[in-house]
């Protein structure tokens, strides 16, 4: 195998040692990996000449020699540390991954009802080979997306969740993904299959326990079956020097409902490549995100909603708060294909700029090929209104408290969408802490 793309040599070497190793991948998976590796090697890390990466410089990522998580020893974590990092109570089913590797000793896989399966991906390849083969790497576009290709080339373990038809699960299922070892490359892979008319909530929680440089490359594929309803959360608090790349692909079938809500607080560079594809009529998608950044953080969202069939609706609401010399990139692409009549799509992206040193590149990209559709988009960026600050000061809040309250108000619209209690109070707490402590603004209607 020859390397063409930049920065791929050491990954090729890692790949070759993986192939030589004792890993007994089934033939289809071994072939898939080789193909994906070839794709990654051919493309290399994108540069800012690549339209999808125009505002996000991957130079430092490509230049850093990360070691695959398998080659490094992860920290031994106490159960207290794990519990503290988790969002939900221990009553929630939970799978824990440390630097991308499944940690059964910290996981609690309560018996889920009705033949539901929550397991490591490696196990699922044995217990549910047909389902895994049918969906793994069949949705995320690894042929076009370098990070999905890199993930697919090294796919070994991860989380597998299958909820069968007509099954509703009340307690959210938490996937806790911890980053602990400096210099590690962790590639968690998540596959979620929602059977027809199933209903559940899944939470991806990323926590960095080190502020040294790490590289997390996560890929989540979700198949939302006919009539199913899935709520998905991604709550990211990586360490300050981590590169956090995440690719999420949701394939929605007929009459399904999918909501995803992302809260981004950590990482030096965080990129989310989210694709929601409607493959059956009557689907509903709700996509929301909030990001609170400071220092030299860089947060990039590339969201694609693909209306491939008629009568589906999608709602996008993304809000970012930028301080210091932070940078945000938002690219919201909505494709309405020729047959997708009666599409109802909206997109809103707003940024609050708390300092003069921040930079925002927000771009809606509407590609509409059907005529009987409703598509709206709006983007806005601005600072806190001086009149509002004065109004609050005239009631006794000082300048700092006024700005904090207004900033919390700015993100409230996203937080208000969250109905799962521990998640909501987690966000309230984290926002309070990130935006400073506010006297008297907590826990009010």
């Amino acid at each position, binding site marked *: 195998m020859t390397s063409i793309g930049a920065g791929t040599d050491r990954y090729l070497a890692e790949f070759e040692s993986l192939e030589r190793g004792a890993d007994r991948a089934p033939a289809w998976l071994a072939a898939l990996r080789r193909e994906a590796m070839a794709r990654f090697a051919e493309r290399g890390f994108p540069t800012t000449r690549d339209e999808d990466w125009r505002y996000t410089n991957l130079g430092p990522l490509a230049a850093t020699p990360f070691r695959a998580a398998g080659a490094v020893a992860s920290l031994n974590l106490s159960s207290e540390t794990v519990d503290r990092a988790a969002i939900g109570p221990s009553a929630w089913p939970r799978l824990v991954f440390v630097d991308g590797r499944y940690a059964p000793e910290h996981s609690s896989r309560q018996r889920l009802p009705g033949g539901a399966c929550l397991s490591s991906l490696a196990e699922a390849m044995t217990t549910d080979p047909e389902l895994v083969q049918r969906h793994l790497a069949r949705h995320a576009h690894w042929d076009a997306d370098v990070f999905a290709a890199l993930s697919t080339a090294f796919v070994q373990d991860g989380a597998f969740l299958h909820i069968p038809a007509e099954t509703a699960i009340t307690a959210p299922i938490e996937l806790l993904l911890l980053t602990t070892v400096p210099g590690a490359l962790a590639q968690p892979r998540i596959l979620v299959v929602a059977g027809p008319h199933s209903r559940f909530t899944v939470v991806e929680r990323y926590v960095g326990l080190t502020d040294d440089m790490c590289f997390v490359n996560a890929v989540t594929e979700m198949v939302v079956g006919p009539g199913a309803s899935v709520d998905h959360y991604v709550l990211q608090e990586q360490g300050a020097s981590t590169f956090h790349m995440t690719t999420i692909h949701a394939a929605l079938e007929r009459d399904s409902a999918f909501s995803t809500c992302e809260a981004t607080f950590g990482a030096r560079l965080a990129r989310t490549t989210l694709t929601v594809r409607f493959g059956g009529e009557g689907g509903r998608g709700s996509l929301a995100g909030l990001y609170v950044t400071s220092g030299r953080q860089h947060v990039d969202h590339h969201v694609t909603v693909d209306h491939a069939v008629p009568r589906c609706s999608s709602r996008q609401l993304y809000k970012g708060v930028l301080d210091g010399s932070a940078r945000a990139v938002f690219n919201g692409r909505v494709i309405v294909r020729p047959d997708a009549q009666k599409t109802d799509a909206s997109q809103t992206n707003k940024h609050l700029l708390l300092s003069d040193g921040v930079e925002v590149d927000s771009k809606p990209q509407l590609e509409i090929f059907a005529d009987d559709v409703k598509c709206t988009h709006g983007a806005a960026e601005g600072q806190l*209104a*001086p*009149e*509002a600050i*004065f*109004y*609050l*000061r*005239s*009631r*006794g*809040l*000082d*300048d700092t*408290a006024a700005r904090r*309250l*207004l900033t*919390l*108000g*700015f*993100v*409230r*619209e996203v937080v208000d969408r969250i109905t799962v209690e521990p998640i909501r109070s987690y966000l309230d707490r984290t926002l309070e802490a990130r935006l400073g402590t*506010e*006297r*008297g*603004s*907590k*826990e*009010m*209607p």
Partner: protein
Amino acid sequence: MLSIRDLSVGVEGKTIVRHLNLEVRAGEVDAVMGPNGSGKSTLAQALAGHPAYAVTGGEVTYLGRDLLAMSPEDRARAGLFLAFQYPIEIPGVSNAAFLKAAINEQRAARGLDELDAMDVLERLEQKLQLVEMDKSFLSRPVNEGFSGGEKKRNEILQMAVLEPTLAILDETDSGLDIDALKIVAQGVNRLRRPDNAIILVTHYQRILQYVEPDHVHVLFDGRIVKSAGKELALELERRGYDWIRDEVGAVA
């Protein structure tokens, strides 16, 4: 309580209030009336400390302190309250959260303990009745989507909750129907006590039928040109502001 001497205020380099003098004593209601553009709102905003209103001369003493040296929040914490002519909308911040923050900031400044959410809620619910507002107002974002009358009543609610020593109402009565006007007037009358004072800035005499002023001052071209008892308001209602213009013109 409030002593304004020779006050001049400019906005964007243009002088609006010129050498204004006004005394407000505890226990009084002072109406400041004047035609559009006479400087009523400029005076009100300058007293509250709006940074866009630049004081270019004069002094203001409030409870023995140099008011002009105080930040807007310190004025509020010292019991000064401005009911805005155009209340500001604050998306994402509920009325309850806003009022809780305001109450506790002011309490902290007076060395009092912070009130928790339940205490605040109880206090707010009592005051809601005064302005005939529904409890749902508390969970709605501050002024967002409120009608003009609701915004004005919300100002009165804030005033009732914060119990100011000196309340300045900047045309709170304008644009209100008679029912809303009575509610606002009732809110003002409830606040009337021997130890506090109210400045009613208004264009019309109408609200003075429900809130009886101790003094009426006419503001004209940035100055108080005439002060008298409540009968002056009726005269202004009957004769308009033109005769003031003539009178001032004759003197000048």
